[in-house]
């Protein structure tokens, strides 16, 4: 899976969890809670959705590594690599 595929998957799951957000509005470094308004349950839903879609089980200590699009693509590529 390429970084572009991971990026697409992350954005699709993010906008499914938070339907008010448009993928086009998500900046590379926007924080999912501080900038994009996800609450704690949205974050847990995103973690579960990424696990289901990519097969990557994200432990709680790693949640900061998916808190922006840029960080998440790097982290998920590392975990999938």
């Amino acid at each position, binding site marked *: 899976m390429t970084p572009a595929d991971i990026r697409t998957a992350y954005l699709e799951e993010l906008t499914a969890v938070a339907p*008010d957000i448009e993928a086009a509005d998500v900046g590379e470094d*926007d924080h999912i809670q501080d900038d994009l308004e996800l*609450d704690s349950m949205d974050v847990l839903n995103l973690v579960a959705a990424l696990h289901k879609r990519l097969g990557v089980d994200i432990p709680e200590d790693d949640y900061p590594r998916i808190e922006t699009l840029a960080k998440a693509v790097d982290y998920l590529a590392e975990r999938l690599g």
Partner: protein
Amino acid sequence: MDIDLWFWRLDPPAPRVAELAAHLAPDEAARAARFVRPEGRAAYRTGRGRLREILASYTGDAPAALRFAQNAWGRPELPGGPAFNLSHAAGWAALAVSPTPVALGIDIEGQRNIEPAVAERFFSTAERQELDRLRGPDWAAGFFRCWTRKEALIKGSGEGLSLPLHGFDVTLTPGAPARIVASRIPQLVPRNWSLLHLDLHPTFVGALAVEARGTPINMHVREGRIPLADA
């Protein structure tokens, strides 16, 4: 023990948002400006601005004069003011205030689609077993009862998500009284905590947790009306 509950919409007309934004401290104004969506910025300004107005009505200060502090786990507190806890969801803010010092937490949630894996991962074994007995709308209602009760408790404890969510069991079956069934963590002694279910709307629930140590709780809704309209 008297607990005041305040509910308000987070999408008032623009002039009211501007009035509320004027109460904010520079760090709050900067925080509001970060939100990508204008609705998010307005909601944050309305939530914090109205919080300041309400708490100022208890202390007698001007809303902008309040100086919040944070406890060791980041929970906002008002030194010299009432105990309070704020939650927001689905376009609403909910605030619990106790004029007398007490640990308290409130959580409200609008029902939404939930990945079952969230329950598997964060609920205790006993809670998962209880939830597994529910189907369809009852499953969703049970999930949100469980979630709001656990959130209210960890917010009330002051330690937030640093407490393990699966370290204690709460009731969740619709109709069953809200309470802690068992706790395996010292910060939450079941007999010390009162849990109250807030039936706000058919698709919108909440919970209030108060470390009342057996003292009966009298809730007074000071703003808003239950059931909340247009949730």
